[in-house]
């Protein structure tokens, strides 16, 4: 048992997830080319793309049985999703590699994993996986118009300004509504207030909550 302090923290949490364990047992006879093809397919699927045909062609190109490939792919998927969950400030590359070494995964494969988790494709992966998380709709499109009502059927000289807003949210819903001036001021004031609170929160939280 190594006394390295990396033992105190594995990026996958407490117990070794079964997928990762079974992957490490199934990597015999897998050459780097096959490994990299499988990795590519897994990354593709994490980014949300469909990779059924890609997997089929990989399965056809090798003698390794499909169920073994299945174990490897499942393990890769778990390793990558767990590693990407943790911000790079908390999980350093060396620690990540140490954890994988403990599973006796070949060094070349460890470098491949590492280049995905700590490489320049990481932020695209983070964005892609976070879209599946529950969240309220975000404002996708915001258009507005300032109107001045000069005259109406009840008033020949109304001269009343108002704001017309059109919001499209990320869940596809579409809202078009008028904002009376007083409500506009309220909206503007409250938005500024939230921004100020966010700033205060960000200043404080960095000091208080340690990783």
């Amino acid at each position, binding site marked *: 048992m190594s006394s390295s302090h990396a033992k105190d923290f594995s990026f996958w949490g407490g117990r070794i997830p079964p997928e990762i364990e079974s992957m490490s047992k199934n990597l015999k006879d897998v050459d780097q080319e096959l490994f990299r093809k499988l990795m590519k397919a897994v990354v593709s699927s994490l980014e949300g793309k469909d990779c059924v045909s890609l997997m089929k062609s990989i399965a056809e190109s090798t003698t390794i049985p499909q169920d073994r490939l299945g174990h490897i792919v499942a393990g890769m998927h778990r390793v990558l999703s767990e590693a990407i969950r943790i911000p790079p400030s908390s999980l350093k590359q060396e620690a990540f590699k140490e954890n994988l070494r403990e599973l006796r995964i070949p060094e070349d494969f460890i470098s491949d994993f590492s280049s995905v988790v700590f490489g320049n494709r990481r932020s695209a992966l983070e964005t892609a996986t976070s879209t599946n998380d529950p969240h309220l709709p*975000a404002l996708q499109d915001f258009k507005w118009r300032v109107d*001045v009502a000069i005259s109406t059927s*009840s*008033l020949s000289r109304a001269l009343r300004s108002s704001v017309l807003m059109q919001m499209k949210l990320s869940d596809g819903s579409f809202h078009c509504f*008028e904002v009376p001036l007083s*409500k506009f001021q309220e909206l*503007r004031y409250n938005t500024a207030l939230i921004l100020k609170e*966010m700033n205060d*929160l960000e200043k404080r939280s960095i000091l208080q909550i340690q990783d």
Partner: protein
Amino acid sequence: MTSIIKETQSIKEAVTFINAIDVNKFSRLISRIIQKLHLKGERTFSEDEEQKLQTALSLDKQALDLVLETTAFILEQAVYHNVKPVALQQQLEAVHLNPDKAEMFSQTWAATGPELVEKLKNNIFAPKKLEYVGWQLNLQMAQSSQARLKSPSAVLQLGLRKEDSEVQENVFADFNHQELLEFYNKLEVVQGQLDSLT
């Protein structure tokens, strides 16, 4: 200034009837009418009330209808042209309304007129109107795909109401810091436009 009440045949008729009504009774009538003037499509008096009015004012149904419509019309014209109370009084006397009734119109207009104009200015023409702004600031600590976040997120609640409905529709939108800042900058541009109008 142009007269806002032209002396048509029906105005002449209405004036005759109005002049015959007792001053106190007319005062209550006109107050009620001006209060309900901004409401579209609502009857000022219920069927029952109209029956009672017919008896109280000794007018048949047609005559009562004419009186109510004409009184409302006079007030609507006053609002539309935003006349001064004095001018209103003069114009009414010009169509041979008795001075006591003309003065009553003028006083009611002076007292309740401005409020009525404000209400009408605020009558909406848009499909929905923003009535309520609420918000919540959250500090998101983690989600399924990301641990140790500490990212502030704001939820904005906008209460929208359709014109003829009592029901408020709530719209919820999530903003992170950057998104909220962009939204705020757009609101500032709108404010700039509003400022340039005054």
